[in-house]
């Protein structure tokens, strides 16, 4: 069969050992994974876009939802997420510096840069946990109508949002929180809000400076892009639609507006946070390998480059989450 082999060049093409893409097997597989993961995140964000366009006139305004900064009181929309974005970008930079140091076989530089990357990732995950806690705890409290719409309150003296704790009346009630030690222990009673519906309604009626703000965004004319403020008469009439008090957000209720907003917030930032967490864990493993000198013995630091790709990808996804959740 030797005679059928035509030329040497053909032997090179089919003989194996080629790298047409100029990348190792491991790196190609990492890229394949990242492309498929990118499609997963795109699917989630596109679904978010779907729900948002569906309720385009009533969707919550992100600037009014994420207004807190740790240890500081006041209204600072965007500041904290901007800080989180910065942290993640900087940890991306230390990661790429680690990869660069790895190419030059500088073990100590790789160790230090990977260490800084892990710290950055930990700060980011912590910030996200804080963001979640703040979102779940809620801000001002609101009423929910039978149709699942949210009614928020505004103090017309100041023009600021009013918290239900500030104006709700106190009415003696017999209902107490169900605890496991009372009655049938495996029954879960729904937790009581800090103020009952009747207390909030009485509070609105007693305070003439409280008016209701609905979810509807003013489409044109004065106050375009802001939520609709009902007059005092309309507010009192609207109160009859309310069926329960909502404080904070979870998968079922959301005091900030559309429930879907909270659902997507938990799912998308949660999925991203899960990626950051796993990224930190993988970085830690590689970090210890570097410290032990595994890659020094192997003669190259390609593993650092591969986890680096994953870490940059996490940063890349956050850039999009930041835009679609907080900016747009």
């Amino acid at each position, binding site marked *: 069969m030797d005679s059928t082999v035509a030329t040497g060049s053909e032997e090179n093409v089919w003989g194996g050992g080629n790298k*047409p*893409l*100029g*990348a190792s097997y491991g*790196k*190609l597989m990492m*890229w394949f994974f*990242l*492309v498929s993961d*990118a*499609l997963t995140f*795109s*699917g989630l964000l*596109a*679904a978010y*876009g*779907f*729900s*948002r*366009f*569906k*309720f*385009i*006139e009533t969707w919550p305004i992100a*600037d009014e939802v994420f207004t807190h900064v740790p240890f500081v009181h006041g209204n600072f*929309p*965007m*500041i904290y997420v*901007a800080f989180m*974005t*910065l942290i993640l*970008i900087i940890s*991306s*930079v230390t*990661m*790429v*510096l680690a*990869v*660069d140091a790895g*190419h030059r076989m500088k073990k100590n530089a790789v160790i230090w840069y990977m260490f800084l990357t892990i710290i950055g990732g930990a700060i980011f995950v912590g910030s996200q946990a804080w963001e979640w806690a703040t979102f779940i705890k809620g801000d001002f409290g609101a009423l929910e*109508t*039978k*149709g699942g*719409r949210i009614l928020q309150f505004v103090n017309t003296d100041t023009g600021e949002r009013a918290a239900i704790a500030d104006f709700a009346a106190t009415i003696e009630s017999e209902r107490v929180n169900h605890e496991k030690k009372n009655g049938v222990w495996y029954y879960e009673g729904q937790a009581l809000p800090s103020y009952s519906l009747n207390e909030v309604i009485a509070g609105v009626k007693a305070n003439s400076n409280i008016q209701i703000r609905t979810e509807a965004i003013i489409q044109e004319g004065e106050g*375009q*892009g802001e939520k609709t403020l009902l007059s005092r008469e309309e507010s009192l009439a609207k109160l009859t639609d309310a069926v329960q008090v909502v404080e904070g957000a979870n998968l079922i209720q959301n005091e900030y507006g559309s429930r879907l907003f909270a659902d997507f917030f938990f799912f998308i930032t949660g999925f991203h946070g899960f990626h950051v967490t796993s990224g930190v864990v993988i970085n830690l493993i590689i970090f210890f390998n570097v410290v032990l000198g595994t890659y020094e013995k192997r003669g190259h630091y390609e593993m650092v*480059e591969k986890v*680096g*790709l994953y870490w*940059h*990808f996490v*940063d*890349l996804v956050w*850039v*999009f989450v*930041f*835009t679609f959740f*907080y*900016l*747009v």
Partner: protein
Amino acid sequence: MAHEHKLEIFRGLWKFKSNTQKIWGVLAFLCVVTAIEVVLGIMKPESLTDNYFLGMKLLNWIFIILTLVKAYYIAWDFMHLRDEKTSLRRAIVWTPIFLVLYLVFILLFEADYVYNVYKDGFVAWNF
């Protein structure tokens, strides 16, 4: 990855002496873009929020374009796609772009349709 790096960004407008320098340069650029986004998001200039293009506010278009710019530099310089072979780069980049544009186009059109169904009063939602 090839062990040599391409050391210029902005199509050669900004050249660097070493890969490390390029990384810091890209970081500076990304920070500037993020700062612009945050400032625009806080100020919300009326000329940008009142004008629409293809049914979306100009401001939102700016945000999305700046996001894509940031994504480009993260992928090209941090994930060093700039130094990879053209065939690998195209396979990685255009596959998701095509699929995502397709999905987004379909979903947003459908969502707009559902919005109109709600708006025209066939479904009561505010009660």
